[in-house]
Each structure stands twice: as structure tokens, then as C-alpha cells.
């Protein structure tokens, strides 16, 4: 197919990486990660439905160090997607589009992601 050799936007390699662009890419990246989270959520529900043995297996897996690392990354991805998602909903009302505003909200998203992730694990 001829369209395979044409250059495709966005031309990631020629830009400097401003914070807004990093967040935009991360929103999609975390979205994909969260689909994996959805997969584990349904396995979790399935293990409860299947009985105690299966549930214990699931818990052992999720408290092992790779499992814990996955859950920690998952919570981080979740709070980033949530924070940036709220930023998107705010934009959808037609507000906050000038350059200063966009960069300020990007900083708020990053701070709130770290804060919410810490709060969440402290709460659990």
C-alpha cells in the first residue's frame, strides 16, 4: 500500500517535548494500560465467583512483587488518566485553551497524579 511510505502526523521525532505533548501521549498510553487493569479487574471478580481457592490464588499473585509493581503502576496510570480526563472535560466546556492555562493545568495534573496515588495507598 502506498500510504505506508508517506510520513504520518504526529511527527514525534522532530519536536522538542513540551509537558502538554507528554501528557497527551500519556493519556493514550495510560488508557491502554488501564485496559489491562480492566482485564485484571474481571479476573478478580471471576476469582471471587469461583470460590475461595481461586480468590487466594489471585491474592497471592497480586501481592507477589511483580503483582504489586503492576498494581502500583496501574494506580498511577489510573490517577493520571483520571486527572487528565477531568482536564479534558474542562476543555470540552470550551474553557482553558490559552497557552498559559494549558501549561498550568498540565502541572496541576502531574501534581495531582502523584498526590492521589500516595493518598490512595495510604487509605487502603
Amino acid at each position, binding site marked *: 500500500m502506498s500510504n*505506508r511510505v508517506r510520513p504520518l502526523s504526529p511527527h514525534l521525532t522532530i519536536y522538542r517535548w513540551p509537558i502538554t505533548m507528554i501528557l497527551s501521549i500519556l493519556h*493514550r498510553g495510560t*488508557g*491502554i494500560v488501564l485496559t489491562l487493569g480492566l482485564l485484571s479487574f474481571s479476573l478478580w*471478580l471471576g476469582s*471471587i465467583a469461583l470460590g475461595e481457592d481461586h480468590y487466594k490464588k489471585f491474592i497471592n499473585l497480586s501481592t507477589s512483587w511483580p503483582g504489586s509493581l503492576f498494581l502500583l503502576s496501574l494506580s498511577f496510570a489510573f490517577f493520571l488518566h*483520571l486527572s487528565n480526563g477531568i482536564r479534558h472535560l474542562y476543555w470540552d466546556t*470550551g474553557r482553558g485553551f490559552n497557552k498559559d492555562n494549558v501549561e498550568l493545568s498540565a502541572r496541576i495534573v502531574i501534581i495531582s497524579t502523584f498526590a492521589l496515588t500516595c493518598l490512595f495507598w495510604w487509605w487502603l
Partner: protein
Amino acid sequence: MKILSLLGLVIKNNLVEGASAHWWSQRVSAFFLAILFVWFTFSFGNIENYEYDAVISWSSGILNSVMLLLLSIAMIYHSSLGLEVIIEDYIHTRKTRKYSLILNKVIHLLLAVVTIVSIFFINTGSQ
């Protein structure tokens, strides 16, 4: 008010088919997901311990079953819409795109079956 008049415009011009329906579905499901996750964090984070008995008595109550069902459906819907956009944006070969979109739908349908059946079995207490 602005959003309401926008919604009126959408309905009046019959734009709800295709792209704008997708756009609205994504936003509406996002909004409900944010609320449902607040419930999940506080309700599930509040139980005594995470032994099997505690978790099953939390998840088998009728209110929590319904909330888990809503959460699952909203998550699966939002996830399938999101992946659809990603597939449409980054897969440029027509055939691969078509099959990826079908695969995306099949996987999310399977997820829906697994979660709904699980919630049903947890609620009715049969295993």
C-alpha cells in the same frame, strides 16, 4: 447552559450518529466512571480485611452488586471506545484496522460476559 444548548444542536441536526455519538458516549461514560470510582475506593477501601469471607459479604450485597455491575459496564464501554480511537488513529492498513476493530469488540464483549456472570454468581451465592 452552554452544554445544554450544544446538546440541543446535536439532537436537532441529527448528529448523534457516528462520530459525535462516539464523542458524547466517551464523555458521559468518563463522567460516570469518575463518580463510580469514588464509590469503589471508599466502599471497598472501608472493609475490615481482604479475606475471602469479608470480600464476598461486601460484594454479594444487592447495592454493591448493582454498583459493581454499573462500574463494570461503564469501564468496559469506555475502554472499548478508547481503544477504538487508538486503533483508528494508528493502524493505517485497511484490513488490519478492520480486524483489529472486530477483535477489540470481541474482547470487550468477553470481558462483559465474564464480569456480569461473575457478579451474578457472587450475588446469588452459587459457585
